[in-house]
């Protein structure tokens, strides 16, 4: 098992830990078994499709002119990351943060929170005490 101070659960060996925003896997479930992970970090340069895919994952809209520009700039930056391949980190544990703190909790006590009016004070579309959004499910 690969333990990680920043996670709430242990990821089974050989599995890729999901990005923080995605749904946590159910116990025993695995995303991308190790055999599917590319050996090299990356082939040369990001493709246009990759840029669009990343933008979609991040939910950041991109105009047409932006795609080519970011493709070039991000590729140059990612090129530089190849330098990390020179480092032998075989038996080095990861550091997720530099403090010796783990699983910091607070007591499960009822406390005052904010008045609803204050929480809604910056709401773009407040409605009857709620945040109005577009339909999530069509």
């Amino acid at each position, binding site marked *: 098992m690969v333990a990680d101070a920043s996670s709430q659960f242990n990821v089974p060996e050989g599995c*890729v830990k999901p990005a923080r925003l995605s749904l946590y896997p159910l116990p025993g479930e695995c995303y991308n078994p190790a055999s599917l992970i590319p050996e090299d970090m990356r082939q040369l340069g990001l493709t246009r499709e990759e840029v669009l895919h990343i933008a979609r994952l991040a939910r950041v809209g991109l105009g047409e002119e932006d795609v080519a520009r970011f493709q070039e700039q991000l590729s140059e930056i990612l090129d530089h990351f190849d330098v990390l391949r020179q480092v032998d980190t075989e038996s080095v544990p990861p550091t997720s*943060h530099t*403090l010796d703190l783990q699983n910091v909790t607070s007591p499960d006590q009822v406390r005052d929170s904010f008045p609803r009016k204050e929480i809604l004070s910056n709401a773009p579309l407040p409605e009857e005490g709620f945040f109005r959004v*577009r*339909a999530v499910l069509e």
Partner: protein
Amino acid sequence: MEEEALELHYLTVHEASRLLAQREITSCQLTEAVLERIRQVDGRVRAYVTVTEDLALQQAEEADARLARGDATPLTGIPVCIKDVICTRGVRTTCSSRILENFVPPYDAHVTERLREAGAVMVGKSNMDEFAMGSSTENSRFFPTHNPWDLERVPGGSSGGSAAAVVAGECLFALGSDTGGSIRQPASLCGVAGLKPTYGRVSRFGLVAFASSLDQIGPLARDVRDCALAMDFIAGYDPRDSTSAPLEVPDFTAALGGDLTGLRIGVPREYFPEGMDAGVRQVISEAVRVMEGLGASVNWEVSLPSTRYALACYYIIAPSEASANLARYDGVKYGFSYQEGESMWENMEKTRQHGFGDEVKRRIMLGTYALSAGYYDAYYLKAQKVRTLIRREFDAALQSCDVLACPVSPTPAFRLGEKVDDPFQMYLSDVCTLPINIAGLPAISVPAGFVLAGGGPKGQRLPVGLQLIGRPFDEATVLRVAHAFQEATAWHKARPPL
């Protein structure tokens, strides 16, 4: 009558505090002098996003009442500038972004609360690179801040507004934040002292998050003693920040004083790269010799070989954490919200497309990529392991040395527009500061001299800061060394030609 001889806006915090306590000046006079200075110079410097004139004068009156009652602290009545990444209840907090242009926090950050309790007077919120992403304050979506030493040059970033405001006399001290160098680098480029505390020393509650394992709030001031004073108030455990270190806070001002006899200074050779400005190299070397003259012993052969990996390590970890932290800006609960789309997702995508600037988008995408399925191991996990190596090297070096000394920035302030089109060149501005955030150590930039701007029509002198790095939670030593250096030099007393 005293005000005519004194430039009130250029008082240090501790001098002003003494004069206030002795009732030789009032906070209203001091605050009005600072506000007047802002009126005179901020049209050119553009350090402030929001100037809170009415609030400041009201707080100044309250401060004067407290001073009269004898109920004051050393910060009571002192005008302070707060970087616009720190939440201030009832006062617009924008992070210099369009997406938060009209956001008014319903709560104070921990550090804001501490300053309010101490009776400090907030004169405004300072300009920054959007969401603290940048090294020049040119990424502000509103306007760039100008370096008071040469208005055609950058003040550094991302706390460029805070640094510029301090050196221009537009506040007596300021708060900034530092994730990859964002306090130290602008402090160096503007000629002020700026401290990044150990990660966990100052609460991040109410600090708009950029990279959760790297961000720290810290003080900027014209005098190291003022930094120590500010730390006495803002440092300490806060249960609302789960990364807040539950450790005792020493009295930082009490630790100041004395020479450097017995102090062991290490100079890591990797921090003097090829291509660094020759003038900067000379200033730093001379600064180390000054400290030698004060009794310190210097080891010029310290080596931190993993330094060359720090840039890649940082530009994987920070954007990855940022991609998670900035996911909340979706136009639902606060901030700019695009409403003309066909669907919820289109609204969110367009909100972020229009609300975020280019650098923010770049970093979100870099981070999303590095964390995505198939790449997490090769990028994020790898970077975290390299992080361990970087920290171990610092720990080893700091066993035989008490502090490390090196430059803050390989060059002095560069021209506005010079690096905006080449993000990678901009990233290189921070090679001397990033590793310290990766390792979570405390570090200060203290004014150490000037270089002449090459090719400038007026041959402007530009400030150069000396960086001192300490052991975890040993800000007291870092401040003491910086203070001793300051007492033996006069660089911090120079004023920009505004």
